[in-house]
């Protein structure tokens, strides 16, 4: 048995899927592909899949990661990819299959591209200015459901407003994940801007040294 890390994209109509939907979908994709995958033991057996960092409903992802286990060590990765791709719906593309290098808990940052509708792009400079504040205190529920104040600024690793669409590198992973939706709602609220429609695309996941996570 061996662990295999799959990189895939979630685009187009797939953005309407929540993480739960994605999990249901992937289970079926794998079953249809006929890959020799490992099932969890016990009462309610299911295919072992570990998702690196869940992606919210509404977001697209270019660098999504899931780990599975193959029971046949000699199974060719090329074959696995082609089978998965022929079983996957439009919008899900499996790009690479590799032996995992790092454990998923080592994911530290994620890069997101934010896009406002063309009529609202004039807000980008305001967003840039907002994100360069010293501190922005937001309220968030912690794991126990208690409301907690926290500062989002330290969780913003870097921003890039040089292209057509802003890119943000935010803390990601189990500890201290910062969702870009939270950044934007803080922006609208604190700057008293009427909220506008935006889309989010996750471009990359990084380790603590800002190297692409592999």
């Amino acid at each position, binding site marked *: 048995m061996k662990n295999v890390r799959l990189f895939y994209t979630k685009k*187009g*109509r797939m*953005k*309407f*899927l929540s993480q*739960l*939907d994605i999990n*249901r*979908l992937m*289970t*079926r*994709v*794998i*079953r*249809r592909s006929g890959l020799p995958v490992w*099932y969890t033991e016990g*009462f309610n*057996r*299911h295919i072992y899949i570990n998702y690196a960092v869940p992606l919210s*409903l*509404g977001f697209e992802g270019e660098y999504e990661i899931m780990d599975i286990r193959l029971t046949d060590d000699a199974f060719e990765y090329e074959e696995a990819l082609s089978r998965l791709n022929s*079983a996957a*719906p*439009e*919008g899900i593309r499996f790009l690479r299959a590799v032996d995992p290098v790092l454990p998923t808990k080592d994911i530290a940052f994620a890069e997101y591209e934010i896009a406002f*509708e063309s009529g609202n792009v004039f807000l980008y400079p305001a967003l840039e200015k907002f994100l360069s504040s010293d501190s922005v205190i937001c309220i968030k529920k912690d794991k126990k459901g208690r409301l907690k104040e926290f500062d989002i600024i330290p969780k913003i690793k870097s921003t890039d407003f040089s292209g057509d669409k802003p890119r943000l590198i935010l803390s990601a992973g189990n500890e201290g994940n910062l969702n870009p939706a939270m950044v934007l709602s803080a922006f609208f609220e604190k700057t008293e801007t009427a909220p506008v*429609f935006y*889309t989010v695309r996750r471009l990359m996941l990084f380790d603590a040294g800002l190297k692409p996570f592999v």
Partner: protein
Amino acid sequence: MNEKEFEKLLLSVQKPGRYSGGELNSVVKDKEKVKIRFAFCFPDTYEIGMSHLGMKILYSQFNEREDIWCERVFAPWVDFEVLMREKGIPLFALESRDSIKDFDFIGFTLQYELCYTNLLNMLDLAGLPLKSADRPSLSPLVVAGGPCCCNPEPLADFVDLFFLGEGEEVDLEVIDLYREFKEKGAGKEEFLRAAAKIEGVYVPSLYDIEYFEDGRIKSVTPKDGAPAKIRKRIMRDMDSSYYPDRFVVPFIEIVHDRAVQELFRGCIRGCRFCQAGFIYRPVREKSADTVNRQAKALCENTGYDEISLSSLSTSDYTCLEPLLNKMLLWTEPQSISLSLPSLRVDNFSAELLGKINHIRKSGLTFAPEAGTQRLRDVINKNVTEEEIFRTCKTAFEGGYTAVKLYFMLGLPTETDEDLKGITDLGRRIIDLYYSLENRPVGKSPSVSVSVSTFVPKPFTPFQFEPQIEKEEIERRQNVLKYSNTCRKVNISWHDSSVSFLEGAFARGDRRLCAVLEAAFKKGCKFDGWNECFNLQKWLEAFDENGIDPLFYSARKRDFDEINPWDHLDFGVTKDFLIRENKKAHSAKITPNCREKCAACGAACFGEGVCFEKR
């Protein structure tokens, strides 16, 4: 509307996956290359409609034909409907996102009466006039099928043509006829007259109805050569009938999110309250080999890890054990679980229980339907208490602790004693549990009792019976509630005002069309949903049209009264229903089809259980 705009809208509603389309196995064709576009409409939410087997069968079957593109349409939930109306987005088909207004067929499946306002709402959202008479051109043709078509009269003004019985053959015959008429440029009336000659097709506009002064029907007169009796269609040979080898697999969770394989159609039992038990007669089975082969293909093509063997009474399938043995050979290694709904108490063997048990431990559900043996005899639910206890004992000893029991309230001849019998049965099941030496250790038993209100339905022996009124329903619910002294027995029931509406529409005639339209205009929709049902608006709609709903639901009907559905022929004869009604009133049971044929009339189809060796 462009893709961006559409996405933006979807991201602002609940469960966008209901409208996004693009599911696995959904069929996209080149619209320039097809001749017929069919919008298959399910007048309820995506999650409910996508769970429906009939739709899956016909969707795949239609799409096998190169000249037809069949697409799915569901009732948008209220949040999306608001946006659609605000932005002027017409009702669209999921596959192409094209407005269905320009399709050739708009076909509804009618599974329950409470979806009728949704049908009107969907026509309206499509931008079409509601009434058949206000849509003079041949297309789009509004058609409907499904069990409610055994009395489609409350929709007679809106739907151009109804399919009676099973649709696999007749639907395509009508589509072919339509194509011919369309190509020669014929009009709608001419087409409908021709279509009415196809067996299984009912064109309501070709029938004139006269009424007595007291409101009962005086006569039903066919015109323009339409048949006096319209007989339903059935599939004679289930092994050679079309069955899809793939289902559209939804992204979001739906009500029945699994592969489904039919074992047989019809039911041998003849429980007197159950419409399905009569309108789908006679029983026709698929062979175990066919079931096994089709089930396997479905799982492979969908990736589902659960398959449900569906029928009205699974344990009556004559080759259940050999089938399970065959299926377990491939389901077990692939971790596919088997579910067997509608298992009956009386022939639920320990061995069978064991087989399901080692696949999945879910709750045990039984439907005794009535609390005393007397009333069970009245309704011909021949389940004895002894059998219930025997099964529960096996189940408890096999590790089960939760039992779910289904009952009906308001059955003909029901007394308070029968109601007390329900809670009493629950309590004694709990007692049984504690009396067992080898009961599961350290666990506590529970019995949940779910009580629905009985609604008399056409083509059942109870079609003549009055439905009890609201106050009486509530009184009986209280009798039930106060008779329950056991904390481990939990009783739940449904709202009584919904069953009143269901009762009126189930046995209503075409004068209800006006009421339906009025209710729709007042905003009634999703009447089967508690959060949407509005009794007040319905009462106003009845009132404004001078129609008393109780005339349809709460009145005892004479055997010789002409019912709104008497010109439709589902095989079972009215004579048989009258005989059964009389037997019910003297609490006499009727043996099932395999024990002894009761000469119900369904043998006229020349197939099925009626011709089995007994």
